[in-house]
């Protein structure tokens, strides 16, 4: 009997605390923007954006950035179904074009980073893979992104250019699915972004894909039409394209557009 009110009181108190945290520190700096935004970003941006987001909110203490990472294609579907995104960062221009075509972008997309592909192999490269052509070797377990996902369509372009036919063990739903299967040692190789190999740390190694066979993945970013916080969303994009944002992204293997 006496327990329910006590629990209710605890819940209320913690809610009040949370609310206080959310609304604290409102007037720091003159130019700093204020408010919360949600950024929908391609899975391959996970590590880079997490750090960039932290740096951005450090510079703008009254701003709050929440990320939702998934395959760009999945995110565009979510936005078109009314998901509350303020900013969308895509791993390819084709997927961003879908957003623009649907009239759901708020600002014109700008390319803020580029990326390229690499063959990812488990640490120590146990199957001694030296390049893309090795991926067609019999008995090799290769995983790729599904063609519906940007990393999958890029991988297909690379394999076409190299004139290699690969029968993958699996078509993954996003690039982290490929990374997981390789770092767990279940797959012998995969094709992912260079940045993903970097993010996997010492669990994986990259086998370089030469420039003539590689593709340049352009990452466009735009605000959405439904964005509620015009100040913060534009400021976040400006931060990413500015020197501080670019320096952080470079750490994760992204290149300047």
């Amino acid at each position, binding site marked *: 009997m006496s327990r329910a009110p006590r629990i209710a009181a605890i819940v209320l108190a913690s809610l009040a605390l949370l609310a206080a945290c959310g609304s604290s520190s409102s007037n720091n700096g003159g130019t700093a923007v204020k408010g919360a935004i949600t950024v929908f970003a391609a899975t391959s941006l996970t590590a880079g954006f997490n750090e960039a987001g932290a740096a951005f909110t450090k510079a703008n203490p009254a701003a709050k950035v929440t990320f939702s990472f998934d*395959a760009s*294609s*999945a995110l565009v*579907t979510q936005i078109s179904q009314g998901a509350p995104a303020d900013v969308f960062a895509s791993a390819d221009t084709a997927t961003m074009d879908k957003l623009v075509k649907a009239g759901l972008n708020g600002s014109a997309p700008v390319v803020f980073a580029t990326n390229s592909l690499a063959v990812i192999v488990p640490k120590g490269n146990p199957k001694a893979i030296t390049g893309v052509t090795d991926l067609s070797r019999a008995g090799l*377990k290769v*995983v790729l992104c*599904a063609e*519906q*996902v940007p990393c999958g369509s890029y991988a297909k372009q690379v394999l076409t250019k190299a004139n290699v036919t690969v029968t*993958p*063990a*699996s*078509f*993954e*739903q996003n690039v982290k*699915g490929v990374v*997981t*299967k390789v770092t*767990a*040692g*279940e*797959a012998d190789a995969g094709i992912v972004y260079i940045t993903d190999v970097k993010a996997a740390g010492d669990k994986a190694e990259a086998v370089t894909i030469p420039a003539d066979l590689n593709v340049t993945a352009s990452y466009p970013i735009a605000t959405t039409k439904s964005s509620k916080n015009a100040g913060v969303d534009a400021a976040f994009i400006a931060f990413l394209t500015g020197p501080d944002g670019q320096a952080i992204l470079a750490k994760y293997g992204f290149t300047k557009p």
Partner: protein
Amino acid sequence: MIVSAPARRIRSERLPLVALVLAAVATAFFALPFIGLLWKAPWGDAWSILTSESALTALRLSLWCSLWATVFSVLFGVPLAWVLARLTFPGRGAVRALCTLSMVLPPVVAGVALFYALGRNGLVGQYLDEWFGITLPFTTAGVIVAQTFVAMPFLVLTVEAAFRQADTRFEDAARTLGASPWYVFRRITLPAIRPGLAAGAVLSWARALGEFGATITFAGNFPGRTQTMPLAIYLANETNPDEAIVLSLVLIAVSFGVLVALRDRYLGGTAPRAA
């Protein structure tokens, strides 16, 4: 519903109005998303999407794998439920909790955990590979393992409850008449728990059919080998939401049909029938 309305009204007078209203809200809560799918469905293209080779392949694989997952759940789950219900031993609570953990585990985590246990480099999996040349990831068998892992607890919990409710005096009587333990189990215990067994099997089948996270993590996604309906639907939704809706409706129709049919036939007793 409309046809049977007068009969229902007579019965409802004995039920509190509040309960009826809440039940109606609950029903609407379940029905609305499906109505939404029907409303958005591209009926013009439905037939061509439905009969496409890729959709049929995924559906066939889904039914095949979920049926095997149900078979394995019954084969191993019934003895497990019997042990949990009838034997008293130290740590029984812990064993029961362990065997139902996969219900609350996020399916993707379940998939990764299966890697570490049964994958090519896994705790047990490395020996499966070394001694028998069996690797489960990326195979149809891997799908069945993943589905069984998440589906069996539904059977175990339901059947355990049935074992507990079954009257043990009949078993005692049979035993005093000289029946062997296996005979008692087969002829007395099993018939007594049949409704619970059927309910548990249907529940675990339904869970296996809808399984997504553990499957894609542990078994991957390859058409005809490991791409079940939920995986096909997820990927279709990335580029072609219309296709995703049609595939979902197929999955829903199949499950709904089976659930309704089994409910009336085996789990009956609750459905009012004109006598």
